[in-house]
């Protein structure tokens, strides 16, 4: 089943002097349960592509259909709601809410969705246990290591039961051990809950784990390799 369908996507940034085509006429689709990595050198357009898939940036041309909905046609407020219900985000710099504990960070998304207290409580503890932080539920982000924070971010991304998770360079700030742990967790969740994960990365360790690798250069897809 197709989760994301991208057709002729183009993004042009108009600078003061030059016009930059960050994404150039890309067409792609992602199936439910994929574990895909978008790779490419810096400035190749992978993060721009990911941002547009996540509805954070508007395409100049083309369309992105998520579950049949063209997200480019949604108003700003509807897009926020759409992201809340359908997309999980993992950022390079973790971006947890510093004043909330690990558990509260995970619960926060569910609270925005209007989930009951009991459900929030159970799922947040289950997710944090799944990412190996069952003992640190009440720790604030400042008291957690980078790897631990990123695991909380993964738990938060999954809390809303999204159709897919977008992870922009999730391992860029992590050491090898933390990277390995995080990737194992995400792979396990992908397999167990059949959630689609799409990474933008240039970390070879992520690439090695991915079952699909899309290489982007100068805003164009130069290869799309599926592995078993």
């Amino acid at each position: 089943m197709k989760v994301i369908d991208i057709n002729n996507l183009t993004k042009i940034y108009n600078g003061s002097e030059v016009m930059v085509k960050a994404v150039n006429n890309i067409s792609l689709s992602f199936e439910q349960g994929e574990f895909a990595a978008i790779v490419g050198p810096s400035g190749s357009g992978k993060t721009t592509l990911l941002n547009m898939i996540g509805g954070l940036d508007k395409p100049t041309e083309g369309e992105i259909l998520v579950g049949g909905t063209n997200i480019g046609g949604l108003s700003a407020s509807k897009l926020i709601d759409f992201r809340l219900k359908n997309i999980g985000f993992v950022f390079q710099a973790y971006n947890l809410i510093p004043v909330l504990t690990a558990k509260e960070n995970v619960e926060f998304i569910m609270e925005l969705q209007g989930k009951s207290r009991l459900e929030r409580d159970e799922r947040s503890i289950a997710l944090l246990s799944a990412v190996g932080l069952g003992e640190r539920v009440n720790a604030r982000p400042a008291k957690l290591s980078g790897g631990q924070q990123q695991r909380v971010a993964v738990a938060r991304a999954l809390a809303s039961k999204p159709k897919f998770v977008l992870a922009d360079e999730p391992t860029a700030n992590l050491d090898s051990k933390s990277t390995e742990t995080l990737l194992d967790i995400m792979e396990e969740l992908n397999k167990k809950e059949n959630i689609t994960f799409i990474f933008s990365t240039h970390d070879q360790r992520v690439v090695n784990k991915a079952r699909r690798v899309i290489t982007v250069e100068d805003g164009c897809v130069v290869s799309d390799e599926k592995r078993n």
Partner: protein
Amino acid sequence: MKRSFIMAWRNIWRNKRRTLITTASIFFALFFAIIMRAFQLGTYDHMINQAIESFTGYIQIQNKEFFYDPAIDNSFEYTDDLISSVNKIDNIKIAVPRVESFALASTGIQSKGVLVTGIDTEREKNLSDPENRIVKYKFTPEIVESILNEIDLPEKQIELLKANENNSYSSLPKISLDLSLDKKLEKKLFPIIKEKASFESNFLSKKDNGVLVSDRLARYLKADVGDTLVLIGAGYHGVSAANVFPIRGVVKIISPELDNKLVYMTLENAQEFFSLGNRVTSLNINLDDTDDMLRTQNELKQRIQGDHFAVKNWEEFNPTLKQQIEGDSVGGVIFIGILYFIVLFGIIGTVLMMIAERKRELGVMVAIGMSKIRLSFVLVIEMLFLGLIGTLGGLIASAPFVVFGHKNPWKMTGEMAKMYEDMGFDPVMPLAWFDAYFFWQGAIIMIMVLFACYIPLRRVRRMQVITALRA
């Protein structure tokens, strides 16, 4: 909802120093604004109490011409119909008839122009209450010296006793207040004061043909109880008014201006002296609810004004006091306005910093699905928390000062005291009791905080998530 409050509360304490500086600026601005305004309003109340509530009344019924030409000829008949019409109005606390006119007073040694005031001795208790102001103790230099020779007093009380030399008192509690006496000192000093400083002075009986002389006037005229006062003036329709009156007592009038010129006599005595028959110059009215003065004045006008009477409120018959208060009040309001304006910029600075350093975080919240309305709500609560901490702190901290300053008015000294006395007022500055002004100061701060909220709300509304995430 609860989470929004929790987040807002925790957010303001992320940068403790900044929060403390901002709340402290609100706290001190509010504290000083309240104390300053309380001093101002307390002083105005005191002025009004001295000049209006305790002497002229809030409303006066006069002969129509008296307002422009306050001569004894412009008096009016004090009839039962008039009394009955006035008494029908519910907000009227008391209506006191008076005869007021000027005369020349002499004791043989000194002469002075005085304000002769004929009073209904019973009803006047509810207005200027001269019976309660009869001088019972006097601190002449000799008496002060004698007291100091008799008793060992602490340094502070010696200083205060010397500072109050030549003062007259109508009661021991007032002496206690002025000399800052505790119970122990009162017990020690009061018997000596009673023995050495007591002053024989009486009030007027109902049919008395004597007079009461105000304290400062008595000192000027070198008059004492038992002496005879000669009064010469003009009576009704040009009849000559001249007579001699025994001085029954000395009264201490709070307003120094009045204390310099007042002579009380019974209403009948004054009517006879000025050949007025049943006429009076004014009916002075005090009110139950002074805020309702204009409505009461209008009601009185409708009932009795006609062709003969004028109904004036104190702001009309004492415009100088009104202008004095208004002028001073505007100055105070401008000063407080400047103070708040500075604080407003402090608050805006804090808001800008809070938004700037959390731009990315705010972007993340919107990216993961938090609506901008809810995000704005959290930021507004943060601002309100900041405002509330400073405001509640300021209100709570200023409250004891207001209570203390109201119960123990600050007594001015030196040039300032002289200036107040020259203006005709007792040189004390009490703080106004809790009233709308107290809570308004807090409300103004909160309104300013809400105004400052416009900045984060505008920033959030205009925020581009992708730009914020790159911050």
